């Protein structure tokens, strides 16, 4: 009998073993994470708050050290140029935020996402908030920036006091190439000042990001074409292509070069992005030439040659294009171009407060 009861008891233990392993696995959302996280952001703002006015620079983000240095330098330049303002920088990519904040023996860089910064600004009651987009074109990423502000202004989460929202001055600084004429012409002129020697020496091909066709918000892709036209007023050796814009891949740049009769010589490549990160180092200046079979490239359905960097593409097509013709600089690293963004910030500060209640697109 004893053995039998022992047996039954042990069988019961056996059967519950598997289940007990799961008792600590409750997957309830952790309710106060937002609060704790927001507190940390607010604390960061509180500890650095010196003024009543703040500028928030918003970029997609990067995991490249060269990019961090460019962002840090930009924040410093802003602090100098806008002495009455506190300046913070925000990433919209979660992965980029996480990687920048963690790591061993590195001072964490807190590039929190825009909604958390904005809530913190409300918490410490900044009276003027200027959000400056660090995007190049007013495309998809820029619409996200607009929507962060809109959600904030509309108190989408209902956690900001209406009184504060009614008195705070909200401003939005537009992207680099917002205006099809003034911005495009100014940027073209400044780029030409920097690279006219190189344009006399060979092709200078700028590589923008661009939006895929299905995502070409506000048809902003056209800015790349407009910039190329403006640059070519100075020198026919300037070209502007992209990574993602339909009919303006590197293959299209090559077609335009051929049409212009450029079949040999140097090809300088330059990222047309705020920072020189993944795209600049890999898509532009990487060593990948998997598509090259020794004689030719095989484009995909959209006409782009995949698995091949700009450098290797033009190299195999017979141009002088190698590490020495890669200009590894993001636009924020060019003070005269950075100044165009800063001009937009000044314009925003001097302009009227934006009406976010009625339009998602304040253009």
């Amino acid at each position: 009998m004893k053995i039998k009861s022992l047996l039954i008891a042990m069988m019961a233990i056996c059967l519950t073993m598997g289940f007990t392993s799961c008792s600590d696995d409750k997957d309830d959302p952790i309710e106060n994470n937002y609060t704790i996280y927001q507190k940390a952001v607010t604390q960061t703002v509180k500890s650095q708050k010196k003024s009543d006015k703040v500028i928030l620079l918003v970029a997609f983000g990067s995991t490249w050290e060269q990019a961090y240095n460019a962002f840090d330098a930009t924040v410093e330049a802003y602090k100098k140029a806008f002495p009455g303002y506190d300046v913070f920088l925000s990433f919209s990519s979660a992965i980029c935020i996480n990687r920048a904040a963690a790591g061993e023996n590195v001072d964490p860089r807190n590039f929190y996402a825009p909604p958390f910064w904005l809530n913190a600004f409300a918490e410490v009651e900044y009276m003027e908030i200027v959000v400056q987009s660090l995007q190049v074109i007013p495309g998809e990423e820029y619409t996200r920036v607009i929507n962060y502000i809109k959600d904030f202004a509309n108190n989408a989460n209902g956690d900001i006091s209406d009184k504060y929202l009614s008195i705070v001055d909200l401003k939005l600084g537009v992207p680099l190439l917002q205006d099809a004429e003034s911005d495009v012409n100014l940027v073209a002129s400044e780029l030409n000042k920097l690279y006219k020697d190189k344009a006399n020496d060979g092709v200078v091909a700028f590589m923008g990001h661009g939006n895929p066709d299905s995502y070409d918000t506000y048809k902003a892709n056209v800015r790349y074409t407009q910039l190329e036209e403006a640059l070519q007023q100075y020198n026919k050796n300037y070209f502007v292509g992209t990574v993602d814009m339909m009919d303006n891949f590197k293959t299209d740049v090559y077609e335009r070069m051929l049409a212009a009769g450029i079949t040999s010589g140097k090809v300088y490549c330059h990222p047309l992005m705020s920072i020189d990160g993944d795209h600049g180092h890999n898509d532009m200046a990487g060593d990948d030439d998997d598509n090259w079979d020794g004689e030719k490239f095989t484009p995909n359905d959209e006409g782009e040659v995949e698995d091949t960097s700009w450098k290797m593409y033009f190299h195999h097509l017979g141009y002088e294009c190698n590490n020495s013709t890669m200009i590894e600089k993001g636009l924020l690293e060019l003070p005269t171009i950075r100044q165009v963004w800063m001009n937009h910030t000044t314009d925003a500060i001097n302009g009227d407060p934006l009406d976010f209640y009625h339009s998602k697109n304040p253009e």
Partner: protein
Amino acid sequence: MLALCTFAAVNGQNDIWRQDSLPEVVVTGTGTQHLLKDAPVQTEVITSKMLRNYAGKSIEDILGGLTASFAFNQDDMGSQMQLNGLGNSYILILIDGKRIHGDVGGQNDLSLIDPQNIDKIEIVKGASSALYGSDAIAGVVNIITKKHREEGLLIENTTRVGSYGDVRQHNGLALNYGKFSSYTNFQLQHSDGWQNTTVEHTEGSEPPITDSRNKTVNRHTNWQIAERLTYQPIKNLELYAEGSTYWKRIYRVSGRHPHYDVKTWDMEYHNGSTSVGGKWNRSKTDYISLDVDWHRHAYYYYYTATTLVEDYEKSAGTPYYPYFPYLPDQKELQSDQQRTMAALKGVFTLPYENILSTGMEFRYDWLHAPTRVKGGKASDWTAAVYVQDEFNLIHNVNITAGLRLNQNEQFGTKLTPKVSAMWKPGNAWRLRATWSQGFKTPAIRELFYRYVRQMSGTYLYLGNTDLKPQSSNYFSLSGEYGWRGLNITATGYYNKVKDMIALVTIPNYQAPDEYIIQYDPVKTRQYQNIEDAKTYGVDVNVNYQWREFAFGLGYSYLDTDAHQYDTNHDVMRKVTIDGMAHHKGNWFATWGHRFSNDYRLGVGLYGRMSSTRYYQDDGNGKGYQTWRLSTTHDLGHFKATTWRIEAGVDNIFNYCDRTPHGLHLGTTTPGRTGYVSLTIRFNQGKKLSNKYKSNISKQQNNDED
């Protein structure tokens, strides 16, 4: 295996070498017992003797070192096991005939198997879905655990330590009293991990990284407690109940280069199982068995730093506000796979030497993956019946034919046949031929996936309930020659897999409207039956045993041809399968001698090689060759206690692949490593007259009795 050896020493009269020359009995090929040399389906066995001599630290170590057909490339996502060119998704792993449960991205967690508690391993290459159902496409690996049927009380402890903080702890407690027996197993596996290089692969104008903290193999710890109770209420009927619980963590160090080596979470796994069943032995060969089991495998991110995730479910739910923060030491469930199975099987000897095996199975899968499945949860069931007959068509020609009918909730019915033939032209020769089909049921994730990701635009990933099972045709022809201590087998095979499932880009209008409105995706990808693969090759094995010496040689030639979908560029590509190597081999020479009743020495020299492993991207893995020396020392016994020491050096010539991180390695070995292990075993038994032992289990464990 260690314990087994020392047990043999306890009994004294049981010489280890003679014991292993007992004919090997295998079950995996047909599900019925056969002497290895007469098995109708070609079966490769890693015997208990080989396991004891090799003293492997893990299942990866054992299969990689003692066979030529397997390849591993352990990383955070699993062992990256391959069998003749096909990956873990297409290899069915059984523990005592029951399928292992739990995978991450198709990779089974092989640490669930205690390497110290393996009796032997049987490998049947090629498709075996007629008998085993889903996943048996590249082959079946059946891990047969020790049965511990010694009378009375048995306590054993094995502690194995090695370089890089390697610890393998095993404890067993067996109680066998009369009709009742209990076996408790504890295992712990730990390694500090290692780093073969501090260099990251950078290209073109990227700044060089030479102080990366990324490890080649990360620090990891896992432990498991398992309990099995058996009860024999009447002669020839055995009932059992089992339970286990398991925990694992993979620790990832973080460095100072956000692009390369900064990480904000570890991986954690929880696994549990419960089963009950019984087996009624109607005669020496005939039986009916019933098994019901429940398994669970849960996979978590364990956050080591504050981590913002882009999560629609937990966030406010708009594409512009998709963030949810996790704090250090919090866990986020990635997937919780639960499986309930019931299997009824019978083996019957029929007139004219027919052996009929038949059975039915029911399987219910349930998945909880909060961020990856619509609504967070999904389920799927499969029912199957199968029948297999083994009969002698004419004298010396045995035919085994099987057929399985599967009924699945999603894809409906599927018939899967298998036919094997064996011809014995003489006592020394065996010729075998097989045509079989294999299939793999779409995983629940593939059926019900719904995952949203932000990468400069919203990417939407969708499952597909119209998926067909992946299926294969396998052909093989093999010859075996055995004479005295010599055994040679050569097998040629051709395996063609079609309807393989991959994520492919589809036009947005093909996605459900509600998703397009909710997520406004820039790209939509969906699982489809689109890829195919052919693998073909020759495997050769030579074994020779002479007096106290044993020699073995394995060689595997492989070629592959596949069409795979390139997700980066949305095209089908003709490719060689990632990780494929044309030539792989292994060899060993062992010698053992009993100097006295109190001391027996065993020495083994082992080698393995692989030619270049080919990959589509990120470079090929270098070919390599490594050697291992192992020694075993049985130190006799004191009263009821026996002792055994094992010590050895792996990778004697200190080969280490220092290819930068980000590129493929041929092997992840850290270079020369040493290990030493001590087994103490205590056994105090008394004979009881009312204990029934089944003939089957006696036969199955004959090298222990």
